C-alpha cells in the first residue's frame, strides 16, 4: 500500500503484514489481505531461514549430515536424524542391533514430547494464555534433561547413527525416566484442566479453521493435522521403523478437523509417547547397541532410496541418491511443515483476523523446517 494517511486511503481492502518481525509469526512472513476483519487472501512468504541444507549435504560425509539435518528442526532432533539414518541404512542394508532399535524409539519419543510441549507453549501464548506457555516450557526442561542423560546433549543430539546409536543409556536412566514420566502424566491432567477444558480456549478453537477429510487428503496434509481431520495415518504404524512394530500404542484420530482437534491430537500423542517410552524401557533386550567399530565413512551402496518417518509435525521423507562415494550425490528432504503451509492458505481464507493465531499455530508450522 502506498504511503499516506489512513484517511486518504480509498482502497476497500488493506494489506497487513504478519512477521517476520511481528510478535505473531516467528521466522515467517505472511501478508493478509483484509476486508474489514475478514481475511480475503493470504500471501505466505517463506524462505527467511533458508540454509540450503540439501546443497550443503552434497559436500559432506554421510556421518556429518546427521547434525546438519537435526538442526533443521532442533526441537525434534532425533526424529529428523532417524529419517535420514533410516534412508541410509535401508539403502545400504546396514543391520541394527535390537537394543539400539529400542533406544532409538525412546530418543524419538522424547523428541516428540519436547516438540509437542514446545507447540503447547507457543500455542498457549498465541492465545495469550501465559500459564500454558510457562508450564509446558518448564516441563519441557525435564525432558531435555532426560535427553541429555540419554544422548549427552539437550538439543542436536546426533545420537542415532547408521548401524545403531552412539552409546548405550546410562544405568540410572530408566529410574529417572520413570520418575519424570509419572510426574508428567499427572501434569498432563493439569494441562487438560487449565487449557483443554478452558471455556475461552474452547470458544477460540472449536469450529475454527475446519479442514475437511477430503481437503486434508487433497492438499497433502500430514501428521497431527491429517489425523485431526479423521484420517488414520501414521508412519509409525503403516511403515514401522525402530521398535515401533513391537510396541503397543494407539494413534489418536479426531474427526472434527478444527484447531481444537489438532491440539487434542497432539495432547493425546504426548500421552501415547509416555506409554511408548515405558514399554520400550520395559521390553528392551540386552545386547550391543552399535557395531564394534564405528567408522566416519559409512559404507553406503550405490543407488537411490526414499525413506520416511513420523516426525512430530508429520511425515518426513528423505530421498537419497548415492553414487557410492563418500558424499551423497543428492539429498532431498520432504518436510511436513512445508506441506502444511499449503493448508494455511486454504484455512485462513474467509476467517477473521482474530482467528489467525489459532489457525496458524495449530498447524505447528516450523519455519526452518519448511525453508531448509
Amino acid at each position, binding site marked *: 500500500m502506498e504511503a499516506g494517511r489512513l484517511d486518504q486511503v480509498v482502497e476497500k481492502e488493506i494489506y497487513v503484514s504478519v512477521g517476520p518481525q511481528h510478535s505473531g509469526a516467528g521466522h515467517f512472513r505472511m501478508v493478509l489481505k483484509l476486508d474489514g476483519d475478514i481475511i480475503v487472501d493470504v500471501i505466505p512468504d517463506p524462505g527467511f531461514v533458508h540454509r540450503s541444507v540439501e546443497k550443503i549435504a552434497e559436500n559432506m560425509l554421510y556421518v556429518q549430515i546427521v547434525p546438519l539435518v537435526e538442526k533443521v528442526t532442533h526441537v525434534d532432533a532425533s526424529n529428523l536424524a532417524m529419517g535420514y539414518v533410516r534412508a541410509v541404512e535401508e539403502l545400504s542394508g546396514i543391520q541394527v542391533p535390537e537394543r539400539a532399535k529400542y533406544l532409538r524409539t525412546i530418543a524419538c519419543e522424547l523428541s516428540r514430547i519436547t516438540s509437542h510441549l514446545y507447540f503447547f507453549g507457543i500455542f498457549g501464548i498465541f492465545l495469550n494464555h501465559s500459564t500454558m506457555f510457562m508450564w509446558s516450557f518448564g516441563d519441557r526442561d525435564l525432558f531435555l534433561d532426560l535427553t541429555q542423560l540419554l544422548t549427552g546433549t539437550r538439543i542436536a543430539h546426533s545420537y542415532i547413527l547408521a548401524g545403531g546409536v552412539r552409546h548405550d543409556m546410562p544405568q540410572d536412566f530408566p529410574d529417572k525416566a520413570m520418575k519424570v514420566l509419572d510426574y508428567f502424566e499427572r501434569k498432563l491432567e493439569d494441562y487438560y484442566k487449565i487449557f483443554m477444558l478452558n471455556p475461552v480456549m474452547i*470458544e477460540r478453537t472449536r469450529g475454527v479453521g475446519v479442514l475437511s477429510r477430503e481437503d486434508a487428503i487433497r492438499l497433502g496434509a500430514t501428521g497431527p493435522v491429517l489425523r485431526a481431520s479423521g484420517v488414520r495415518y501414521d508412519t509409525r504404524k503403516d511403515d514401522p521403523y525402530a521398535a515401533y512394530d513391537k510396541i503397543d500404542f494407539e494413534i489418536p484420530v479426531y474427526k472434527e478437523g478444527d484447531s481444537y482437534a489438532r491440539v487434542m491430537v497432539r495432547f493425546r500423542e504426548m500421552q501415547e509417547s509416555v506409554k511408548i517410552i515405558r514399554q520400550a524401557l520395559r521390553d528392551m533386550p540386552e545386547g550391543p547397541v552399535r557395531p564394534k567399530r564405528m567408522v566416519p565413512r559409512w559404507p553406503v551402496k550405490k543407488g537411490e532410496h526414499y525413506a520416511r518417518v513420523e516426525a512430530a509435525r508429520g511425515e518426513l521423507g528423505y530421498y537419497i541418491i548415492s553414487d557410492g562415494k563418500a558424499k551423497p550425490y543428492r539429498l532431498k528432504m520432504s518436510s511436513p511443515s512445508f506441506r502444511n503451509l499449503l493448508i494455511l492458505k486454504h484455512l485462513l481464507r474467509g476467517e477473521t*483476523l482474530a482467528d489467525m493465531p489459532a489457525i496458524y499455530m495449530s498447524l505447528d508450522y516450523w519455519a526452518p523446517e519448511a525453508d531448509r
Partner: protein
Amino acid sequence: MMDVAGLIIRIVKYLIYDLTHMGPVFKAVIFPGLAFVFILAIVLVWLERKMAAKVQMRIGPLYAGGPEGILQPIADFIKFAFKELIIPDQADKLLFIALPIVSLVVAMAPIAFMPYSRYMIISPNPYGLLFAMAFVTLFPLIILLTGWASNSKYAFIGGIRAAYQQIGYELPMWFSALGVALASRSFDFVKIVESQQPLWFALTQPLGALAFFIAMVAEMGRIPFDIPEAEQEIAAGWFVEYTGIMFGIYMVSAMLMKLYVLSLLFTVMYLGGWLPGWGLPEAWTFVKAFIVMFLIMFFRAVFPRTRIKTFVNMAWDKLLPLSIINLLIVFALTFTGFYGGVQP
C-alpha cells in the same frame, strides 16, 4: 515585598494545617489521591507479576532490589524514561504527543469522585456516579483516537476493536449502574454506600453486579478481554507506535489506573464500600477493592483472550438482557420498599 512574604507564609501555614487535618490538599495529593495511587500502582504491578509467577511455577521479579524484587516496577519506569521517544513520520504529531497525557488525566479523574469513607472523598458531589462513569466511558474514545493518530494499520485495527468492544459493554454497564442509582435513589456515592446498610447491592442485585463486573473487566482491557491490544494478531494494537515514557504513561493509565478506578467503583457500588464501617472505614474500602483487583489480575493466569466477535455477541445476547432484567427487578422492588426510604 512584605505582602509576598506574608502570602507565602500564609500559604505554607494553610498547607501545614491542611495536611495535618486531612483537608482537600491532603486528599488530592496524598490519600486517596496521587501519592497513594502511584504507590499502589507499583505494588500492583509487582503483585501481578509475582502472582502470575507463582501460578506458572517460576520466581518472578527478584533482582531489581527490595524484598522479593518489589522495586522492579520502578526499574521498569526508569528504563522507560530513558528510552528514545520515536514519533512516526506519518503520525498526527499533536494528537500523538498529547493523547498519553490526556489518557492519564481521563483515567485518573474518577478517583476524585469516589469515596473511601463518608469524609475521605476528594470532591464530594451529588452526581459523583455520573461523573465517574462519564470519565470511564471516555477512555475507549482515547484508544480510538490513539489508533487513528498513530497512522499505523495495527494501531488503527486496535482502535476500531476498542470502539467495537465499547459498543458491546457500554449499555450493560450503564444499565447496571442505573439499577444502583435507582435502588439508592441517588447519584451520590456516599448515599449509594449508605443505602447498602443491611445488604450489599451485590447480594440484592446479583444480575446487575455480574453484568457490571464483566463489562468492567472488558473496559479495563484485561485478559480475557484484552482484545484491542491483541499482541499476537496486531502486535500490541492501539499503542504499538509508542515508545519510551509515552508508552510508560499508557501502561500506567490504561493498565493500572483503569484497574484501580473500576475496582474501586465496583466496591463502592456493589460491595458496600466502607460498610460495616467500624474501626478504620478506609481500610474496609481498600481491602474490598484490593480483593476485586486481585481477582481480576488472577484472570491473567487462567484465561486466554476471547475474540471480538464472541465478546460483542455475549455482550448483546447475555449482558444487556441481564442488566435490563436487573433494572426491572430493582424498579419493581422499589415499590415494595425493599430498598428502604420513601416509596416513589
